[in-house]
């Protein structure tokens, strides 16, 4: 993605070749964000596509004066959009927990950028996050992984800052419990 700024410019002018380039390059990044929030893989794929439509529709609003770190800024901007569309999806389901396991084909444990152990560990950790109730999952994802503040979380989820902190605390407790259970089962 050399000359990202040029490509963004072209996307803003509805150049579909450049839009496709952006979509294909950042699809994995976006899906990894959304899948942490949305339980079902197929639904997450749809949400990501919706997110990209939103990205391209609003890409002319993306401005940065930090030429050195355009990609970082752009990814950060895109991440916020993806989180928003994922939260919208959770809201559509009234933040209800979903049941059923996650099929194995959604994972790519043969990812060469990770050692097999790491890949398995990360897969298990993400599975644990996905088992959290949606309200806890959303707050944990936003604060711990996506780096949002409690104020931002409160604004996005339309809850109080206290509720956000409380949900995070409960999410941590649940995760620690799950990790202990996991360790116990392995031993």
């Amino acid at each position, binding site marked *: 993605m050399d000359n990202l700024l040029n*490509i963004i*410019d072209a996307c803003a*002018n509805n150049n579909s070749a*450049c*839009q496709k380039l952006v979509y294909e390059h950042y699809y994995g990044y976006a899906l990894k964000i959304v899948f942490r929030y949305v339980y079902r893989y197929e639904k997450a794929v749809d949400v990501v596509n919706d997110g990209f439509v939103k990205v391209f*529709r609003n890409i002319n609003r993306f401005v940065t004066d930090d030429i050195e770190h355009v990609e970082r800024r752009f990814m950060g901007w895109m991440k916020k959009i993806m989180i928003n569309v994922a939260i919208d999806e959770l809201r559509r389901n009234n933040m209800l927990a979903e049941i059923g396991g996650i099929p194995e084909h959604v994972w790519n444990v043969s990812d060469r950028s990770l050692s097999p152990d790491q890949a398995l560990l990360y897969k298990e950790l993400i599975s644990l996050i996905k088992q959290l109730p949606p309200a806890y999952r959303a707050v944990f994802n936003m604060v*711990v992984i996506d780096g949002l503040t409690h104020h931002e979380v409160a604004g996005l989820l339309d809850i109080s800052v206290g509720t956000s902190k409380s949900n995070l605390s409960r999410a941590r407790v649940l995760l620690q419990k799950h990790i202990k259970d996991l360790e116990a089962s392995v031993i």
Partner: protein
Amino acid sequence: MKYIDNDMDELFNKAGQDYPLNTDHKNWDAVYKALQEDKGDLPPPQAPKNFNRYYLLLFLMILPMLYIIINNRYQYTQKDNVSATIIIPPAEQAPNPNPLPAGSIRPRPAEADIATPLGSTNNDAERPDKQDEAKSTGAARQVLPNRQSVTSLSTGEYSNNNRPVEKNVALAARSDELVKSGEPVKNKIFTVTGSYQNNSERLKTLVQDAQTAQYSYLTVPLAGVTQPFGKPAAIISEPPVFKALHDAADLLTAKQKSKALQRRGFYYGVKGGPDFSSIKGQQVKQAGAAAGILAGYKLNNRWSIELAGLWSNKKYYTDGKYFDKSSAYMPSTVQIYYLDGSCDMIELPISVMYRFSERANTFFVSAGLNSYFMKKESYDYLAQAGGVEYRGYRKYKNSGNHIFSNMQLSGGYQFKILGNINLRIEPYVQVPVQKVGIGNMPITSMGVHLGIFRNIR
């Protein structure tokens, strides 16, 4: 516990970023289709919003103009021609025991004594008493054989309050009154509308007629001399009447001239007009506009200093090579073919003006420095990057202030339209002293400003 939480957070953070997820289910077609449908939902293109702003600017420009015109019109109606009242020496009357010296001033007699106020003559024919007078005119002509010569005064000099069309009617009415038979008009003022100057012989005839008709006073406006309403008229009591009249007129005119010589003071107004801008002499595709207010100070009848504040929109076209991409946050790898630029700015020109004549209607030249305060810049451009050619659009707000960035030279003609109000036509050219805008471009502008301003005395 906190450490445990921190370690756990770090671990989950890494997992959240790098977890192994199958990302092969891309569906660009679905996204593309959604984007195309989205395009179809777009509302039809509308006229640029800037258009409304220009109307607003025009409206704001008209308001002060209306104020100036109405205000000045009101003051103008408060003025009247200065007139001289001649005391008619009666032919068979005893000498005046208290004659006034020639050229002396004394208050007008009471309104009740004024038989025919100035300017009231046009409707005289409709008045019943005047109809009666008209019936008696035939007899009067026999008494006053010089009546025809009096009537002939209407050939130019007897303008009726600067309304030449009506002057014949006014003079005819005056003559009818003069030849009124049998009615003693002693101690009454007879007022002549129009001017007497350059028609001394005819005025002499008029005086003789008045004398024969036994009028005591004859009021004659002094040509080209105006004075605020309510001031006393010059009253000439001693012969030679005409020399005294001339002297009084000269005296008053000289006073006005001396006032004119000391025309220092402030003036203010509005100006605006089209603006044609170009970069390095390239083509001009569209016209911009500028409008705003001006204020100045006349140092004397020739020189003045002036400051203006204009809201200006400049439109320009340029080849990509004159556009500095680095300051516009564009990577150097982008190759811009050309740009159509538009910028909204506040212009603050400060200039020195020289008038070629001391009169109100004169040619002038002006030179000064102009500062640009950029409010908004937008660029439509055609560019190429990474082998992809595309049309781009960028907008920048408050992109910079450029103090004394242009030299403004102008010249034109100004003329008085009403009282203190002057109109000015001012072609100008703005030569760049430094590069301006987000793209650091040398913008040369030219156009014509139409201005209206009012002197504060």
